[in-house]
């Protein structure tokens, strides 16, 4: 066999392989896209036929769900969107700041009580949240924080999310230690190392944290429900729930329409944020 033949065969192989890859991905994409298509389709059906018309292509069209849903509740829907955005933006800032500080300390610094503290952090992650609701509610009530955004935001600035701490710890620990040591030899202090060495290399972890915080805060239903009492402060999930009632006449069409509207920022944020997922060591390189 000449080199030429093997070369041609390799090209053919890789082309066939690329084709199979795309075919597989496309098939999988259909399965993955289904819920979104279904949501859009349902938002375009009149409420009465949502449960009767099972096809993706609406048999009857009703475009009024969007305009109607926007104004159906006590306040126009943009108010709820803005409320959610405020909470989400501050939560992301809080998580990035406080969790990265704590994660760096847990991953790299050596101080008394570290193992215990880290174990406690993981422990809080393992306890089902339902039994914490009442004590937490009492704490926030004592602080006079009911019907404010504080219970939803402040804990994020105080590194209460074990998940993100753990995530960042794992990322920091996978970074080569020579980096720290080299910086230390150059005379950098602990904070300096954190700021100029570790942080820049943890962009993927940061992007992940930001995306996850966005999604979970954006979708969070029960905490806002518990702590917010005035409609004016309601977030998007609370608003969405008001379209339906298990006993009454639910406005399904409007609910789907507003669900789709509220999904758009999440998808947008994910697409914007995912760029940073790919900016790790691989692209910045080891200097």
């Amino acid at each position, binding site marked *: 066999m000449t080199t030429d033949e093997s070369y041609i065969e390799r090209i053919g192989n890789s082309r066939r392989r690329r084709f199979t890859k795309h075919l597989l991905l496309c098939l999988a994409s259909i399965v993955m896209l289904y819920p979104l298509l279904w949501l859009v389709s349902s938002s375009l059906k009149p409420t009465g036929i949502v449960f009767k018309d099972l096809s993706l292509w609406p048999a009857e069209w009703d475009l009024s769900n969007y305009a109607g849903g926007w104004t159906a509740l006590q306040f126009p829907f943009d108010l709820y969107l803005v409320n959610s955005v405020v909470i989400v933006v501050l939560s992301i800032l809080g998580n990035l700041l406080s969790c990265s500080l704590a994660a760096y300390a*847990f991953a790299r610094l050596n101080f008394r009580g570290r193992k215990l503290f880290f174990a406690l952090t993981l422990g809080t992650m393992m*306890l*089902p949240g339902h039994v914490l609701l009442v004590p937490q509610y009492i*704490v926030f009530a004592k602080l006079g924080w009911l019907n404010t955004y504080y219970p939803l935001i402040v*804990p994020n600035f105080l590194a209460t999310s074990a998940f993100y701490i753990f995530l960042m710890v794992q*990322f920091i620990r996978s970074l080569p230690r020579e980096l720290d040591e080299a910086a230390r030899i150059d005379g950098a202090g602990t904070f300096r190392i954190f700021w100029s060495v570790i942080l820049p290399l943890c962009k993927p972890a940061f992007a992940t944290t930001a995306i996850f915080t966005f999604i979970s805060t954006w979708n969070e239903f029960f905490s806002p429900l518990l702590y917010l009492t005035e409609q004016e402060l309601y977030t998007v*999930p609370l608003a969405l729930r008001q379209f339906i009632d298990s006993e009454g006449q639910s406005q399904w069409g409007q609910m789907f329409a507003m669900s789709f509207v509220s999904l758009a920022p999440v998808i947008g944020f994910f697409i914007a944020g995912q760029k940073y997922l790919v900016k790790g060591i691989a692209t910045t390189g080891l200097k």
Partner: protein
Amino acid sequence: MTLAPVEDLAVSGAPVSPRKAAKPPQDRSGYLFILPWFLGMAFTIIPFFASLYLAFTDYNLLNVPNWIGLENFAEMFSDDTWWQSVKVTFVYTFVSVPLSLAAALGVAMLLNRGVRGLPVYRAIFYLPSLLGGSVALVLLWRYIFGLNGIVNAFLGFFGVEKIGWTSDPDYALTTLIILHIWTFGSPMVIFLAGLKQIPAMYYEAAAIDGATKWQQFRKITLPLLSPIIFFNLIQSLISSFQTFTQGFIFSGGKGGPANSTMFYNLYLYKQGFEQFHMGYASAMAWMLLIIIAAFTGLNFLMAKRWVHYDN
């Protein structure tokens, strides 16, 4: 003490080689870094230990709790529904976690390099996970898994009889497992982020040495990705032991049909908030913590064999 296994976690870095055995010097600035965390304990640790206390009481949400010792814990062992909830949760966890992680890693590797339209695929594959919190989801599931839903329609094509994916006690849990695997977006994103941490030059060097893709995967990807795999494993274990929303939405909060989707956390919720047995619910919560901590600890122990940290 339940936290004991975690003691073994190699926070200081994986197996310390004898040469480096001397610990780095104490660094007090660590306390400065975890200062916010200390303050945050008010919101986590107080409720955490409050629930531990309540586990030994007959707390009913409305009256002052009375100390009843280990009664709540003893009660669990004679509670058929509790055993059922343990069974459901274990089956769910041990089937769906490996499968969804494998799917997530597989897709992440596929998407990691050399695919045109990568950002689009990534977003698409993440979509089902984005929808996770939506109230619309329950209707979607019915639409897909209903008797006249598309899954049955598809299977009907091959002559399979209609299956009660949501209404038959033999199938309901399977349906939920399928749904879990389908929403592999979160671990996938983390894998992707982790894969990007691996310097491309390693692969280039390996390719020059004539290593096959499989060898590259075994020798480069797996070890270097292992801290992230480990994170995803622990994280998926913990969250699937605590599965609530899926079960709640799926069965309208009932855990049915015939308790076949009565997840541990769902039963805990029903005890605490529907039957006002918050003391019992707290005890259940701590029992689950022990179970999860045991599995997590086991993983941390085994991690020493396969998780590679750079030191």
